[in-house]
């Protein structure tokens, strides 16, 4: 009998070709100039280009703020949804996941249009607002997921040992739900840094995020610099994933 483990071979080849090779190429292009010879100029340019650096800083700032806001707003929501005392219906949770399935550009445009119609000034405020809109479900879901599966006996044990409900929450529920929060962070932070289009729509082109700069460089045939910027991002992804939770669990559980 042929070994069934061999069935993974086609996919393995596919992954090498369409995942590993492209990432190698990002690094390859990042260290080449237009003529194709080795150079560190692209990386050096990133660290010396004030515009890019400030965009980078703004992106990180927006991403951090967005992530924090999502945790701040999303955690209580997830907690309430996971608590049988307050919510028994699966439909409420579906309502929260649903926006994740609608084209992000469409949602963002709708949000921007609503802001304009309400007479709000498109800028930093609306950007954050819109970002929270877009990413809140991605924070709520993994936290909800972990909270709803958490064994109730931990909370009972804590209260049995003398913890007030408030202490139970901070000393047991929150620490035990950290993996969910980390998954949420992974699903909110990097995508925020790297979005393009969304930030332009929400700020009427006033604020650019890092993803937009990469896109502009690639579109203007500055592939090498674009690749260098992408490489910077890859490094950050590597770092956040080290701290991060389990995105696959968070997303994979959607259906």
């Amino acid at each position, binding site marked *: 009998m042929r070994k069934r483990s061999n069935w993974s071979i086609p996919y393995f080849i596919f992954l090498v070709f369409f995942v590993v090779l492209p990432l190698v190429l990002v690094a390859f292009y990042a260290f080449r100039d237009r003529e194709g010879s080795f150079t560190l100029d692209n990386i050096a340019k990133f660290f010396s280009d004030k515009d890019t650096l400030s965009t980078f800083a703004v992106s990180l700032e927006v991403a951090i703020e967005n992530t924090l806001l999502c945790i701040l707003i999303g955690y209580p929501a997830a907690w309430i949804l996971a608590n049988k005392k307050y919510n028994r219906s699966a439909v409420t949770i579906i309502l929260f996941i649903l926006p994740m399935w609608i084209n992000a550009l469409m949602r963002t445009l709708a949000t921007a249009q609503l802001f304009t119609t309400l007479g709000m000034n498109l800028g930093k405020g609306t950007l954050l607002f819109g970002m929270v809109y877009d990413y809140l479900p991605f924070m709520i879901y993994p936290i909800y997921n972990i909270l709803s599966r958490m064994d109730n006996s931990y909370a009972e*044990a804590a*209260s*049995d040992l003398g913890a007030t409900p408030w202490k139970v929450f901070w000393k047991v529920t929150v620490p035990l739900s*950290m993996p969910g929060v980390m998954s949420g962070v992974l699903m909110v932070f990097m995508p925020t840094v790297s979005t393009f289009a969304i930030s332009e729509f929400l700020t009427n082109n006033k604020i650019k995020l890092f993803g937009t700069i990469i896109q502009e460089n690639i579109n203007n045939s500055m592939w090498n610099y674009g690749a260098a910027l992408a490489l910077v991002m890859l490094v950050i992804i590597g770092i956040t994933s080290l701290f991060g939770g389990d995105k696959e669990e968070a997303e994979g559980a959607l259906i």
Partner: protein
Amino acid sequence: MTDHIIEISHLSKSFGGKKVLEDINLYVRRGEFITLLGPSGCGKTTLLRQIAGFLQPDEGTIEMDGKDISGIPPHKRELNTVFQRYALFPHLDVYDNIAFGLKLKKVPQDEIDKRVRRVLKLVAMSDYEDRDVDTLSGGQQQRIAIARAIVNQPKILLLDEPLAALDLKMRKDMQIELKEMHRKLGITFIYVTHDQEEALTLSDTIVVMNEGRIQQIGTPVDIYNEPVNAFVADFIGESNILDGTMIRDKEVSFIGHDFKCVDTGFGENNPVDVVIRPEDIYFTDSDNKAQFTATVKSCIFKGVHYEMFVETELGYELMIQDYDAYPVGETVKLYIKPSDIQVMQKLRTANVFETEMSGDGTVSIFGEDFECKPELGISQGDAVTAEVAFDKVELLDHMEEGTLEGEVHFILYKGNHYHLTVKIGEGQFIYVDTQDIWDKGDLVGVSIAPKDIKLTKRDEKA
């Protein structure tokens, strides 16, 4: 202060309309090891959780040291719980798990250190302070769970099936340790288990529960020797449970013979249940001593004794345990001592449904319409009592074929037939006598022939 540390009176609890505990009355003596024993779903854990404070009683009170504690949240109660699957906090190490309660009470650090060390020593886990709890074996987690509870010096320790997750050998060892710990600590233990052997080994007092009610309270010896009903007799140890008739005081008839016994007060010619423990049926060579004869059907060696099934000349099957083996096929002479015959009130003698006529010639039983013999003077809408004998209820292999659908819930072998409890819904049971073999959990259809439903009109006001 009274001798009773816990006093529970008239306690009832329902979940979603389903009664899980009904009129529980129970006291717990200071310092005793009391066990709530019963099959799963009997309400024992629900009762424990109300003592711990995780659930509130619907009716009735729970008093601790003479004060009603019903409204007090768990974190203010002077008792601690060892949870079924331990519920050790996975984000804390062994030390922090044990210190959790003390830190909350703001006990000084050096005092915490001392007390944690002391309990770790008590549970023989001294070197494990810094270990992550998920690196511990089941038995070790068990010890830490106990340590975490007793370090708070509770007046009462509640244990919710603490040994259920351990393997047999480990369970036996922990039983001995628990008993020893109870002796050393001198506090009250309230223990929940479904394992009758565990209960008999550990307890000072056993509370046998079934279907939300207390069946019997007593010492292990009392409960084993004098079960009050067929359920307790069947649940605790091995037994032969038989239908009998109390002829008069101290004389009872079963398996087609009359026997002398020591029970009185059951009236004359009343149906009763008779329990004989398998070790209480004796073989004899003497025709004088012998009360009846039977043929040996099977004989199995059980380590210390032999377990035999014999069939009497009238077709009743009995289980006998004896140190000597008798060959299969041999006819043997048997006798039972009067003091070993335990006579019990029958819980019921027929299915009785207080219901109403749902139409002309149909009566409603558990929401389904059963055809019945039309009876003069009874018409649609009348309140009636429908009575169906146990052996007139028919069970069908396919659920859809019956008028009602149910699940075989409890099986009692009565020597020559089975007495089944069939669960129709929450709190809805039909009792069936049958020769057919069913297994617990079988899904069955239930039907009753119209002629077997006996109707009597019920006076609404009464």
